[in-house]
């Protein structure tokens, strides 16, 4: 239970809940924290640039992982092994899965493979041909 200070219970004064409301907040927040993605990444068609990024470690490309263009339609994303939250607590990057899709109306697919707890490989490809460098992609990781 957070402390509300000298004017306790001012934040709860107009709510009907009190402890019941805070209990709901805690339970729901716990449930969300269990399943929340670690990051969403938008990548350029050339597989060499992160266009946008939203992660637990920060928002915007400044917080994005390092991208390496391996070959046509193939790239890796590498995060630092840890990050620091708003309170200065150092937390590990511990990825275990990812899912992606192309960011364009084409018959293209994206496959994600976790190479290390802080690194994934992404492949952008056509169903009946090979890899392609003409489709931007979205990836979300946990």
């Amino acid at each position, binding site marked *: 239970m957070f402390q509300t*200070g000298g004017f306790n219970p001012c934040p709860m004064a*107009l709510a009907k*809940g009190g402890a019941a409301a805070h209990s709901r*907040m805690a339970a729901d927040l716990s449930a969300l924290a269990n399943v929340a993605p670690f990051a969403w990444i938008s990548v350029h068609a050339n597989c060499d640039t992160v266009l946008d990024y939203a992660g637990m470690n920060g928002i915007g490309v400044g917080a994005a992982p390092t991208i390496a263009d391996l070959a046509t339609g193939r790239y890796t994303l590498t995060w630092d092994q840890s990050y620091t939250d708003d309170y200065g607590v150092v937390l590990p990057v511990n990825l*275990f*899965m990812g899912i992606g899709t192309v960011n364009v109306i084409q018959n293209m697919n994206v*496959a994600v*493979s976790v190479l290390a707890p802080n690194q994934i490989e992404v492949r952008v490809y056509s169903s009946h041909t090979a890899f392609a460098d003409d489709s931007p992609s979205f990836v979300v990781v946990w």
Partner: protein
Amino acid sequence: MTTPLGSPAWVRAPGITDYGSATNKANAYGQGVVNARTDVGASAIMRMADHLAACVRTSPFCVGRVLCNDSTPAAPTISSCIIMPSGKTQASYEGNAPATGFPSFARNGDGDVTGTWASSYTDAYSVPGAYAPTFAVGGADSTANQNVSAYISGGQTVRFKLWDADAGTAIADGAFFFLVL
């Protein structure tokens, strides 16, 4: 014993009042935060409640990784799974022997499995909330051209099929990720 307001997150019916906020929330006696280190004001609670409700509406219920066992046909292995009520699995498990609170998985054929979730789960305060899968997506854990199809047939199950995008055939002993809302 205090019973939380509202319903568990996976019921997807959050409201700001469930979290102690209100549209006319105000600080008692009109007194705002005096010390940011010790006080939480009405405006902060309002924002927190609104953000929390927004996340509850759209957050996945369960995500995980499935390894199909096809060469020697058996239930798939769930190498990792995270679910709202229970958190993350401490170890991998066989789909036909899930730990309490985690989904079971059965093999239908090569690269073809069905996951089953309970119709009700309880939150951290033992409050039950009904659940049924409503959205599902999958992605191959692969460096090859592989796809995953997800199909909610109704009830508590989601069927996933892992297939070769080039050949259009099922993939045996492959692995895929899933996300279920």
